[in-house]
């Protein structure tokens, strides 16, 4: 798994590639919480286009990001979900709780849901 950040004005986009599992979900969690809680970035976007696999530990990290964003009145956005990532989120019954877009353009342009 690789995670890298692109920092625009008041927005951070994380580009993630590879599988998210117990080996690296703590790194995802840390990256998200640093951006939201410490840097107080008001909009954090996860580009999951390169993520072909995510398990419950990965979902848990995304949930941490979502919870932090709610605490801080920030927005936490996902886009580019693979079929498999979507299936797993569906299985978790959390799909509707996340703000999800098809692509980066939509993730950047949309006003708060």
């Amino acid at each position, binding site marked *: 798994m690789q995670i890298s950040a692109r920092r625009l004005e008041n927005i951070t986009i994380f580009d993630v590639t590879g599988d998210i599992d*117990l080996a690296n979900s703590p790194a995802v969690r840390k990256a998200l919480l640093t951006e939201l809680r410490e840097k107080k970035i008001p909009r954090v976007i996860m580009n999951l286009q390169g993520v072909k696999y995510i*398990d*419950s*530990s990965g979902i848990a990290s995304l949930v*941490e990001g979502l919870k932090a964003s709610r605490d801080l009145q920030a927005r936490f956005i996902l886009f580019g979900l693979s079929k498999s990532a979507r299936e797993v989120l569906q299985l978790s019954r959390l799909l509707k709780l996340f703000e999800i877009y098809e692509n980066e353009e939509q993730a950047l342009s949309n006003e708060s849901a």
Partner: protein
Amino acid sequence: MARRRLLLRLQLHSNPEVLCGVRGAVAPIASAIGFGEEDCRAITLALDEAITNVIRHAYGGKTGREIEIRFSKVNGAHADKPGLEILLTDRGAEPKPDALKGLPPGELRSGGLGLHFMRQSMDTVVHKRVGATNRLRMIKFIR
């Protein structure tokens, strides 16, 4: 359970870094038995979650502990609808009573999804304590 044929036995350490290798092994085995792509993904997820739980709960996050996995092809009621049995063995702590009940999904909680994923993905998920070992048996049949 009519018949069981051992296909592959894996021994690994309780190290999250080998999860990817185990996932890589199970998907083509399931596919070779005849499962479709969605089922292969479900089986892969169930096994990943089971190993994750062994690492985190049975071994309390300690690395370097032994985990064994056996993949067997099984025949159920219908000879033309075989199944995959996965037997996971560890020498870690026994689960606390009721621990394996699992929590309802759909709540904003960072955790508690693994058992739900396993049960949703497989037909059978059974834990058994045998001596100093935990044995988790998961089975899924082709539909």
